[in-house]
């Protein structure tokens, strides 16, 4: 690592805006809209129909494959409809539940320390556990993979490096005991021997709270690691390298290197699950100059984000952008009538003063500022040439699939080229190309096999005919 320069950016954090007050609670929505895709990119299968009665914690959609998460009702009431609606990650199918206000609950606590690890993994999956860090990747498949590869080191990601977002900071301050309990649950589930809670060194209160909780739990397996407060220190593979020194090889999951990374929010949710509370809420940072009283809120999944803004005192003057996530990787929402999903860690109500307009776009002069800040040591200037030339070889050589879309290159580019957006598009295109090639190969294969079958059939027919003829001749002769 001798010649590895420090990468990434030191950005204004803007976190004190929301992290100073205790976590509030957003009012329960009158109609909750539960996205079947909570942010992982794939939708679960609904198991309720309009008219069905549900209670808080009733499973309303089940995971169908390792990239989907089951969904539970955050309110008690009646299922109104299942329809396509805008969600923070684009339009997608949602289950609408009318809240009857009773908050009637379905609760089944887990006797977790006595539970078989494999059964615990399944139970956590059934409870709808997925990453709270923003990607909402289902937790159970990661835990199962960690068990399969005998990964022994759990790293809890409390880095929270992106500007404005402070829900993990608030959570660690308020519910450090749950984070530690959740760590123990996850360690039991995956079979870990130790756990490191990684927290950026600009969060002394959170660090102290978790430290106190670890001491109270008297669990020597759990340690705290301070990571530097630069962006994007919390990106999974970079964090794992910073904390453990292990560079997870390209094309493999951390579990093959003996590691598992989960968000601190995921751990806190695991503590809730063993108490019998399936995943139905999360902490959301509502911040930016466009909202009257920025803060962190417990919000039930399916709550319209407009309700969150109202709970924070409403809009101040006309905000410029409504961003799901932070200022570097967030997604600009077209409307505030989208529901809270598991992936929604932050709602940035930004005015013009919070943001910087992208400048005039010039041609790339290959200055290399982007390469200097790229945390995965890509050469974005060369990748861009590959994108412009649409040359898959160049894109592969320069590691298009290694781009973590952190936006650092965009931030420094003097030519104001939307690099990250172009790389994302190129990646989508490459995926399409790949699946088209896969299908073509598949079809060619099938055609070849079909031909072989026909040939075999005609061969058998010919042989049968010859046999019959020979027999007939034999009898005749």
């Amino acid at each position: 690592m001798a010649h590895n320069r420090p990468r990434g950016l030191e950005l204004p954090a803007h976190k004190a805006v929301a992290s100073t007050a205790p976590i509030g609670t957003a009012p329960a929505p009158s109609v909750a809209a539960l996205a079947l895709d909570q942010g992982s990119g794939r939708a679960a299968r609904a198991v309720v129909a309009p008219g069905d009665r549900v209670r808080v914690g009733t499973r309303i959609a089940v995971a169908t494959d390792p990239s989907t998460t089951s969904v539970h009702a955050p309110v008690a009431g009646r299922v109104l409809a299942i329809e396509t609606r805008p969600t923070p990650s684009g339009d997608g199918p949602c289950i609408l539940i009318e809240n009857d206000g009773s908050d009637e609950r379905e609760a089944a606590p887990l006797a977790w320390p006595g539970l078989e690890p494999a059964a615990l993994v399944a139970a956590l999956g059934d409870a709808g556990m997925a990453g709270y860090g923003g990607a909402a990747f289902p937790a159970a498949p990661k835990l199962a993979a960690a068990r399969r590869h005998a990964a022994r080191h759990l790293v809890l990601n409390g880095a929270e490096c992106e500007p404005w977002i402070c829900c993990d900071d608030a959570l660690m301050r308020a519910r450090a005991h749950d984070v530690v309990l959740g760590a123990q649950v996850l360690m039991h589930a995956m079979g870990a021997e130790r756990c490191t809670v990684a927290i950026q060194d600009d969060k002394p209160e959170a660090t102290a709270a978790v430290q106190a909780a670890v001491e109270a739990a008297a669990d020597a397996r759990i340690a705290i690691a301070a990571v530097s407060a630069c962006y994007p220190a919390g990106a999974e593979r970079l964090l794992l390298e910073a904390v453990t020194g292990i560079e997870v090889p390209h094309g493999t999951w951390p579990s093959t290197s003996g590691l598992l990374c989960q968000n601190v929010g995921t751990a806190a949710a695991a503590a809730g699950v063993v108490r019998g509370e399936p995943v139905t809420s999360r902490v959301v940072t509502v911040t930016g100059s466009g909202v009257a009283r920025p803060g962190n809120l417990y919000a039930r999944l399916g709550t319209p984000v407009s309700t969150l803004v109202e709970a924070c005192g409403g809009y101040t003057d006309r905000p410029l952008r409504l961003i799901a996530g932070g200022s570097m990787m967030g997604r600009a929402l077209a409307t505030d009538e989208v529901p809270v999903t598991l992936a929604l860690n932050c709602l940035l109500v930004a005015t013009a003063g919070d943001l910087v307009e992208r400048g005039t776009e010039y041609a790339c002069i290959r200055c290399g500022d982007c390469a200097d800040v790229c945390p995965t040591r890509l050469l974005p200037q060369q990748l861009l040439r590959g994108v412009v030339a649409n040359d898959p070889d160049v894109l592969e050589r320069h590691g298009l699939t290694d781009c973590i879309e952190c936006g650092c290159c965009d931030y420094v580019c003097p030519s104001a080229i939307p690099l990250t957006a172009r790389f994302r598009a190129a990646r989508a295109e490459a995926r399409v190309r790949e699946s088209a090639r896969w299908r073509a190969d598949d079809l060619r294969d099938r055609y070849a096999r079909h031909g072989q079958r026909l040939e075999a059939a005609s061969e058998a027919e010919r042989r049968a005919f010859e046999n019959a003829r020979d027999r007939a001749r034999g009898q005749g002769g």
Partner: protein
Amino acid sequence: MRFATSPAPFVYAGCSVPRVMFQVLLALAPVAAVQVALYGPGLLLQLAIALPTALACEALAMRLRGREARVALGDGSVLVTAALLALSVTPLAPWWLTFAGVAVAVLLGKHVYGGLGHNPFNPAMVGYAAMLVSFPLAMSRWPVPLDAANTDWPSLAIHSWHAFLGMASPADFDAWTGATALDALRSGLAQRYTMEEIATRSGLGPLAGAGSQWVNLAALAGGACLLLRGVVRWHIPASMLAGLALPAAVMHALDPGAYPGPVFECFSGAAMLGAFFIATDPVTAATSDRGRLAYGAGIGFLTWVIRHCGGYPDGVAFAVLTMNLAAPLIDRWTIPRIHGHPR
């Protein structure tokens, strides 16, 4: 409530291409000041023809290509090209020579390839090479620096003006010009003088040529500013100077009578201007850190080779153009190891 959308990120550092170019122009100011002080106001005349010509050519080219001229004129890159060319030619160059050089640089060096960011060769060096190959005599007529000559600044101004308008006769040039340090070295060595004899005969300064050492010092100062401001990185200047100094040191140690030392090489001709302002043009240079080191070292070494084994007194322009050719290959060989990929 409805909101406008745009792709992430939503904040930027606020640097821009025009600002980069402006800082380069600013860092060239000390070089220009020293040149004007030592060689008279000829440089100002050259700038007066080079800058407007460059802007006009840029606008014309954008027009011919059916593009908006405003953005291209605003990026400032063509001004840097013109300024570098004006600083490279002699202050006694006639107007049409500079005009032609700039036109070649902008039209044939830059826009035939698609404009800013797409040209494989450094445009200023394309223009310079075209001028040097086509008009070697006019390009070699450098005035004797002020403190070494029995002349004064006002008469230098008059000479420059006459030369600029193309009204100077060959006899005038004989009276006004003298051999540059590199010229003196080349012809002196050819006549089998030793280094010391050449130094006393042609009145060299403590570092290198009496005039060129100051110009090079000024370029070093301007380059240091660019380094400190983060506009250029250290790799290319350092490796180019090392690539020039190393063979000089070796050959000087072996045969001090026939080869000048590394200090003379680094403060002669276009060495410093090349190291900090020309070789560092990011569009035409190699782009990774290791690539930049190889690229710079190649320019330095080729400069030395051309100076001592080639047909021209200085070799920076041809060394840069040659390494421009090699840059894509260097880039291919020096891709940094991506995070998570095998060492």
